[in-house]
């Protein structure tokens, strides 16, 4: 049986749906026996979920305006070279 330290070193593999079945089974065996690692797995999954659930906020209007202006200048500077 894996130690907790060994399990935690493989935590990413445990969370990765593409991890091969044999390794997954070994990791699963540890989680099912170890309440601490069970909680760590659960709260790590929740950590990733809360981050994935947050959409990026709109960028500030003035930042957006300056970005568009900068692009317009870039486009204008390029146009003579293309004609």
């Amino acid at each position: 049986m894996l130690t907790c330290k060994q399990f935690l070193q493989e935590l990413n593999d445990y969370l990765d749906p593409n991890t091969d079945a044999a390794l997954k089974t070994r990791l699963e065996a540890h989680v099912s026996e170890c309440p601490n690692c069970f909680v760590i797995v659960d709260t790590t999954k929740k950590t990733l979920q809360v981050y994935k659930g947050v959409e990026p906020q709109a960028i500030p209007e003035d930042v957006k305006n300056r970005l568009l202006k900068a692009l317009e200048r870039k486009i204008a500077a390029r146009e003579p070279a293309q004609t």
Partner: protein
Amino acid sequence: MVERDPPVTTPVPTPAAFDETALVARARAGDAQAFTALMTQYERKIYRLAKHITQNDEDAEDVLQEAFLKAYEHLAGFQGNSKFYTWIVRIAVNEALMKLRKRRSDHTVPLDEPVDTGEEMVNREIAVWEDNPEQRYSREEMQGILDRAVESLKPDFRTVFMLRDIEELSTEETAEALGISVPAVKSRLLRARLALREKLTRQFKRKGEDVFANL
């Protein structure tokens, strides 16, 4: 009834009809409107990424502008082997890391700290979370909690976390974007995830149920 000719230019697609490949092709052919549509699609994510890496509003705005202007300038060289989004993320990361290095050289924060792969995993907070913490906080409060947790990570860790878990680049793409090895990406991601878990558990743990902490 008057017959009208079909419009000459294709309208910029709405997000629902967003077709990155078609827009990139049009932008490469010189259609500035198509490039603007690509920019509009991704500017929020790039700005968020830049803010998290640089932790500075002014630098983040510079990164945002420089990334899209460079992308526009070098669009002809974009091979299309990767997605445009992955490409623009890589450009933005390079710009952000340059800002970070410059800022660090101006101040005292250490830069390329060696990655400790000895993996001393610190897990002090082993407690179940309250149910649905998202519902207990306003959107702004939640955003603040999550941002502060990410910002407290070492730059090497938070950059990998942002690319892998927020921007959803593959391990290989992240390694390439940062110029580090795949094992280094994996190691930093693990450390970042565990550190964030630790910080969020302090915030979200169910009160009075620190039941496993002393086992």
